[in-house]
Structures are given as C-alpha cells and as structure tokens.
C-alpha cells in the first residue's frame, strides 16, 4: 500500500490578500516580476476580460482576487501558457484583465480561460472557465459541456460588450450561480 501525504488544507485568502499578492493595489510597489492584470503576447487577438463577482445577495465582492491561466493564441500551454492576476476595484468591484484570446489547447475542446476566485468568505478558491460567444459551435461539441443544462452553460460564456471587450460576471450563489469545477 502506498503511503500518501495529505494536501495542506485551504483557508480563506481574507480581505487583506492585496498585501501579499497585489501590493500595487494598496499603494505599495509591486515586487519585481509579480504578476499583474496585463498579459503581453503577440500570439493572438488582444482582448479585455472584465466583470464583477457577485455574492448571494447580488452585492459586488470588492475584496476578490482573481487569477487566469490559459493557452496562448496558438493554443500552446506549458511554458507558453499565459497567467495574470487582478483584484476587484474597491469601489465598483470590477476586475479587468488584458490578454489575448486563447487558441484551443486540446482536441475537441472549445478555447477557454481557466479562472480562479479568492476572497474573504471563500474557504477554498473557486475554479471556473471563461468561454467565448463566437465559439458556439465548438462549445456545442465540447464533451465538457455534455452534462450541463443550457442555463448552466450560459454562466460560462462571456458576453462581448464592445470591440474586443468581453464581460464575464460571476455569481457565487443563487439562481444565476456560475458553474464551478472540481478538476
């Protein structure tokens, strides 16, 4: 029998997550190389991804920290994968990433961005995915959507608002609750 260690348990990131992960958001210098909300890559179409995380009462989660991990525009992951981190605005709750539209990284899967959400009151980070409305055919054929209801699918598809800007609101709880994954 193989002996397996136990994963260290999660605890909430709490309301002061900015100190260690996004010091520039509280008026301190960012550490060198610390990831921010902007991805520079010439592999794909530049896009803006923005939205608000809502709690079960519909209020914006103003202390959220979000991270994205995605393929580059050519669908390459591993060392070519792209990562960024953003924090919600203290006033509006809006988060905003600048990135490129990912290419498909796995056969049969629609292009998407992996998105993690951390905040006070979130005991273990939530993992969701952002898909794109223009990929409707690929999404329809993607096996990862097979067991989701149409309403649940819709929570994972960003809305194109203007130009190259996509809106992706997250609902932590309630009738419009975003689908969260265990991967």
């Amino acid at each position, binding site marked *: 029998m193989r002996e397996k260690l136990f*994963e260290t348990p999660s605890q909430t990131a709490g*309301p002061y997550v900015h100190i260690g992960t996004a010091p520039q958001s509280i008026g301190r210098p960012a550490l060198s*190389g610390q990831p921010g909300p902007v991805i520079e890559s010439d592999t794909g179409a530049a896009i803006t991804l923005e939205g608000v995380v809502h709690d079960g009462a519909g209020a914006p989660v103003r202390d959220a920290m979000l991270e994205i991990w995605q393929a580059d525009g050519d669908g390459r992951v591993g060392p070519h994968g792209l990562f960024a981190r953003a924090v919600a605005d203290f006033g509006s709750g809006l988060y905003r990433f600048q990135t490129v539209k990912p290419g498909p990284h796995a056969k049969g899967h629609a292009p998407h961005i*992996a998105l993690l959400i951390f905040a006070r009151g979130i005991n273990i980070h*939530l993992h969701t995915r952002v898909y794109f409305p223009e990929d409707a055919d690929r999404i329809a054929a993607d096996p990862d959507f097979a067991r989701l209801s149409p309403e649940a699918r819709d929570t994972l598809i960003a809305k194109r608002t203007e130009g190259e800007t996509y809106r992706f609101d997250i609902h932590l709880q309630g009738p419009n609750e975003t689908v969260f994954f265990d991967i």
Partner: protein
Amino acid sequence: MTAPDFYRRDRSAHPPAYAPGYKSSVLRAPFRPLHSLEQTSLERSGPALGHAPVGPLDHDLIRNAAVDGDALGERIYLFGQVLDENAKPVPNALIEVWQANAAGRYAHVKDGYLAPLDPNFSGCGRCVSDAEGRYLFRTIKPGPYPWPNNGSDWRPAHIHLSIFGEAFTQRLVTQLYFEGDPLIPLCPIVNTIPDATVIDRLVARLDMRNQEPFDCLAYRFDIVLRGQRQTHFETRPEGA
C-alpha cells in the same frame, strides 16, 4: 508525451464552502455541487512563477520594508519543505506571504484596528523553494487581532500563504497558525475545518534546533501540494 493526472482533491480534507460559523461564507458559498471534469494539459501545467528571480530581501520581512530599523516584534524564522502528496519535494514553488504586524495590525487601507502600524514593516514577502523543496522566511510573529463575526471574535496569530507548484491544479492559498496558541480552537475561520486532525496540518511547530541563537526563534511548517498519479508501481526504500 502526456503527463499523468493529479490526484483528485480530497474535499473532506478542506473546509466546505458553506461554514455558517464564519459569517462571510454564508453569502459567498455556491449552493450547487462542484462539476467534476477531467484534467487537460492546461491544468496539468502552470505558470513558472517560481523560476523567475526574487529580490534578495523578499523573504526577509524584518528588513524588506525597513525605513530606519528592523520591524518590531518576536523575531522568527519560518521554514519548511514543499512536498507533493507522493512526498516528492517540489522545487521552484513560489510562496507569497502576508501578515499583520506584531500588534495585530495590517498595513492595508481597509484595516481599521486601533493597534499601531509599524513603519518598518509591510507584512509582504515571498520566496522560492530550492532543489529539495525547502523554503525560508525571516519575519516577526504576527499578533492576534479582533474582527467582527460573532461580536468581537479574535484571530489566532497567523500568516497567510499563497503557493504555486508546477501545475495549476496545485494552486493553494491558506493560513498557518503557531503551536500552542490558545486562540486556535476558538477561531471561526480555523473551525471552518470540522476535523481537528485536519486543522493540525495548519499548525507550525516550534523548532529550537533551528533557532538563530540570541536572535531568532524558528517555526517549521511543511506544505503539501497535490501529487501526480504514479504510472508504475514504486517500492519504498528499506527503512524509509
């Protein structure tokens, strides 16, 4: 070549999303169960943040924000090893930390606790694990602080940690506590974890052998990240 999957996360060894003793979780916990998916090359890889150089004082919170002297408080080393569930060391793990100062106050615009700020302390640090997965911080022991939950609850002394291993599936954010702190069993955030043996995995141990004599106490805290399924049978070495 396809890397093997990581073990599924054992959700019983983590706090549930909904833990009403911690009031903030009530409106922020999803009602629906998580949707289980197969891992792809995206989740099996991750950003190589631990391969970028970090500043020489990033791990030293006593000095890294100093203006005219060392940060005030009980000087400690915080050290340990980053391992995966297979007990394999994880090199190049990026560990970011944040914490209150010795008086229990955060250097954060949203912290209104009346305890004083320390002008020589920001509470922000980071380091990268070495080839054996070992990491080291030097800091001051944070103070406990009150927060509104059931009236004035008190947080035990704790340090927040954010860890990146090799794969995005290994992502982890948590908090560590200090051995012997009587506030640990009273804390609603600690008690989001219902099982005392699981809570115990978040407790850093006093390690007198690794103290810096006449300078710093030492606390040891090992970190375990998700491990990859093993593709072939491995025997444990004799005596291990």
